[in-house]
């Protein structure tokens, strides 16, 4: 059974020639010829190589560190430890007044202290003439420790969790009515406990930094999801002005949240370059990535649902425990999606958090929602079994008209349409409602659904657009490209706004010398940049219109600015007008530029005002089919369809890839991904791509994605971010399909065969 569907190709109107189309990614040729250079691929004549030495205890002090053998290796330039390097300035405490303070991965002042806070913390850096020498010498460094008791087991410590603090951006609890009483009184109820393991991002490019000091000026080649905040952070840590630091990050080899903060490798490369006076490259080994870059927290969750005989929810309870490190990280918003998904009259949500002596956790693709939707959407499915009701029908009966907690309007929510379309395309009516009843040869076949949900947010961006005399339009913004199609979609938007051919648009990004862009996180970058690009283009058009009307003999003289349209490479009122070349030539200008600047106060005001009025989110309906081997209980995902309500789709090709990418990562989360931590000593047991199992080609079937393409009236160009919504709900859709195929509910990720046998 293999059905292939056409991808939705939205109709374009005259005003949007490029937006909505399936345009090839601009950086495709550079990436398929090897021309694209990543952070570890810039050479300098005096380049030296650094390697890290990691602590092998979870907590304590380094009482002595013997570097003699390492220093004796020919080619070793220096061995840096807390005994011999000047301390960096400590990181700032997180504050909403300076959002860049959020970018600190941990609070540890590396090599500025003898303290060890997790197993794997870097305690020394070897700098050498070659990579091989650096790594070999690092293996010769001999630290002595005084160990202190450490709490490293999530399983053992989760009972000590305390209620998570709410922040300005995210609340950690909610109560409406009396959910426990309603649950107790409900004729139909489920009460389930879920657990999800730690995960790691595992971008294929390990974190790498090339740091070059020239006096007090620093040039940094770095793969980062946040150029502006990283620059500010480094300026504070090394006591130099921001403008003396240049960060170049044109190609980021995958991020998924893992390159959203400043971690040890970046800081220590910059420190090593400063101390040795050499250009230093620190390309982390895969193992070092696991030891120095945080991952997704483990969680335990309870979801309890009560319903009447018609399937209408009377009680919804979702509580969670996540963990942070004692030196950083933050509690995950695991119940965030549950605030908005179902119209229950009684709701209780509570997030709890426990501190462990482990590396700080960090955001990983849809932090909170990815694992939160696994629990909620599995529980809804289980309630459907209890009621003997179709799981789509159960969801439709509880689809809210307004936000269940705050009562706000949805800026757009078409889950009903998404499920209806998906059910038809996927052949849901062919699903036998009995568990274990569908077969294909020896394979048990199961079908499951789950809802995807991710909030749509915007940050702020500074953008300039410049029209040059030869008709080239240059968009300048310090944006981040880690595979989303960042430059491509902004070029499409700018081309439409200014009415120029796409191949005349050049997007400059990935450089701190450009106007600062938003970070690439929270599915916010595209919408944020789109708002900046459209506003800057509007300004540019006004300037150009003024110039055009003043041109001698101008056919636009006397026209109202509102009647002037940007199209066909110029400005026109009706069929009269001038090309941009003519306008610039008449004005004697070689270029015209316009820009918008980010303003924190305006941003925060708008954010808080809009939050009272709207609930904005990308949503979707996942349809999953699995085959389960009845003898070995091996689970194979055999078909997938995701139908998304994600507002305007800017690029049908890159959007499909991004949504598919989320689904693929979700399939990994469902079936195989697990960062194993030794509970005795907090050490990651499988810090490698051979033992942390991510989906490979053979694990991923053709994935169909569709979208409703209904613009969100409250978002720039009607678009909602799509970087994260794809992964939400995926693990539940798999678990629900497995439940259908086998009759077994697995509430403990990943769904490995031992849990089914």
């Amino acid at each position, binding site marked *: 059974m293999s059905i292939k569907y056409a991808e939705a190709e939205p109709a374009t109107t005259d005003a949007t020639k490029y937006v909505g189309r399936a345009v*090839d*990614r601009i*950086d*495709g*040729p*550079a*990436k*398929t*010829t*090897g021309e*694209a*250079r*990543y952070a*570890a*691929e810039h*050479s300098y004549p005096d380049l030296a190589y650094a390697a890290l030495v990691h602590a092998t205890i979870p907590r304590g002090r380094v009482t002595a560190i013997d570097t003699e053998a390492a220093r004796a290796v020919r080619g070793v330039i220096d061995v840096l430890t807390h005994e011999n390097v000047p301390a960096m300035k400590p990181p700032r405490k997180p504050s909403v007044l300076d959002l860049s303070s959020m970018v600190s991965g941990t609070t540890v002042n590396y090599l500025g202290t003898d303290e060890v806070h997790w197993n794997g913390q870097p305690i020394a850096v070897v700098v050498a003439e*070659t*990579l*091989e020498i650096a790594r070999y010498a690092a293996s010769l460094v001999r630290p002595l420790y005084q160990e202190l008791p450490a709490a490293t087991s999530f399983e053992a410590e989760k009972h000590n969790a305390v209620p998570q603090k709410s922040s300005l951006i995210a609340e950690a609890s909610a109560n409406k009515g009396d959910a426990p009483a309603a649950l107790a009184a409900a004729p139909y109820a489920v009460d389930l406990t879920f657990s999800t393991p730690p995960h790691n*991002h*595992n*971008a*294929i*490019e*390990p974190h790498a930094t090339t740091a070059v000091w020239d006096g007090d000026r620093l040039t940094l080649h770095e793969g980062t999801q946040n150029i502006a905040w990283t620059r500010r952070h480094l300026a504070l840590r090394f006591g130099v002005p921001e403008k003396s630091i240049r960060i170049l990050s044109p*190609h*980021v*080899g*995958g*991020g*998924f949240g893992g390159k959203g903060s400043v971690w040890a490798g970046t800081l220590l490369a910059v420190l090593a370059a400063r101390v040795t006076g050499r250009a230093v490259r620190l*390309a982390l*080994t*895969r193992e070092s990535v696991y030891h120095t870059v945080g991952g997704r927290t483990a969680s335990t969750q309870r979801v309890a649902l009560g319903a009447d005989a018609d399937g209408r929810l009377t009680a919804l309870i979702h509580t969670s425990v996540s963990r942070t490190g004692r030196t950083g990280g933050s509690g995950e918003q695991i119940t965030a999606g549950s605030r908005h998904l179902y119209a229950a009259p009684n709701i209780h949500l509570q997030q709890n958090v426990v501190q462990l002596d482990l590396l700080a956790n960090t955001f990983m693709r849809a932090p909170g929602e990815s694992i939160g939707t696994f629990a909620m959407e599995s529980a809804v499915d289980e309630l459907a079994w209890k009621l003997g009701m179709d799981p789509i029908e159960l969801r439709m009966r509880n689809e809210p008209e307004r936000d269940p907690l705050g009562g706000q309007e949805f800026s757009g929510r078409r889950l009903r349409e998404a499920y209806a379309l998906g059910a038809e395309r996927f052949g849901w009516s062919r699903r036998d409602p009995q568990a274990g009843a569908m077969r294909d040869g020896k394979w048990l076949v199961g079908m499951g659904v789950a809802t995807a949900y991710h909030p749509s947010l915007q940050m702020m961006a500074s953008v300039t657009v410049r029209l040059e005399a030869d008709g080239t339009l240059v968009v300048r913004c310090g944006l981040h490209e*880690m*595979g*989303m*199609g960042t430059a491509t979609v902004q070029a499409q938007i700018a081309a439409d706004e200014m009415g120029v051919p796409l191949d005349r648009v050049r997007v400059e990004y990935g450089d701190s010398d450009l106007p600062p862009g938003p970070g690439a996180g929270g599915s916010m970058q595209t919408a944020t940049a789109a708002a900046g690009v459209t506003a800057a283009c509007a300004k540019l058009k006004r300037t150009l219109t003024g110039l055009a009307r003043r041109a001698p003999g101008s056919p636009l003289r006397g026209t109202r600015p509102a009647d002037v349209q940007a199209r066909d490479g110029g400005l026109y009122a009706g069929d009269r007008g001038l090309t941009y070349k003519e306008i610039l030539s008449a004005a004697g200008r070689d270029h015209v530029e316009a820009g918008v600047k980010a303003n924190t106060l305006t941003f925060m005001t708008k954010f808080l005002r809009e939050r009272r009025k709207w609930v904005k989110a990308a949503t979707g309906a996942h349809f999953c089919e699995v085959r389960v081997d009845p003898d070995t209980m091996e689970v194979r995902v055999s078909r997938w369809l995701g139908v998304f309500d994600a507002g305007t789709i800017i690029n049908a*090709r*890159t959007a*499909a*890839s*991004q949504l*598919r*990418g*989320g*689904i*693929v*990562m979700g399939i990994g989360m469902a079936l195989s991904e697990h960062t194993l931590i030794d509970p005795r000593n907090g050490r990651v047991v499988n810090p*490698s*791509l*051979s033992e942390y199992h*991510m*989906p*490979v*080609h*053979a694990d*991923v079937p*053709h*994935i169909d994605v569709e979208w409703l393409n209904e613009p969100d009236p409250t978002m720039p160009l009607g678009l909602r971010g799509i970087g994260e919504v794809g992964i939400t709900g995926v693990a539940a859709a798999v678990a629900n399909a497995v439940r259908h195929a086998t009759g077994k509910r697995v509430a403990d990720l990943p769904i490995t065969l031992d849990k089914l046998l």
Partner: protein
Amino acid sequence: MKVNGDVAALDVEPWVSLLDALRERLGVTGPKKGCDQGACGACTVLADGVRINSCLALAVQYDGREITTIEGVDHPLQEAFVRNDGLQCGYCTSGQICSAIGMLAEHAAGMPSAAGGSGELSQDEVRERMSGNLCRCGAYNGIVDAIMEVAGETR
């Protein structure tokens, strides 16, 4: 050693991997380092036309051999990858393309696979034979489509 058609005279220690020799000594950075232990395939190059993980090979073993990296590839797969969006961040892409070239040659030569065989190249065959090349962005569908397109054209 010949790298992408040019003779490269290298004086390397015996412990230097082929990948590090290419990237750090010759400045040929198309082959990527994702794991340095043969698990991800980002470092895949062609040695006399056969795909290998260059991180698991020692440079000295390839004395006198002909190494082709993505920089030396001129193949319809490259455009097909762009057309089918068989890439996102691009870091696994060099390896995917080199691996696909080697894989198509292996299949044409009748090399069997766990997916069943050496008959017509099916999507499942491609998935099985390409499973040594990880893509964390999840561009697998586009990669398979690109390979199928080119395999169809060149058959």
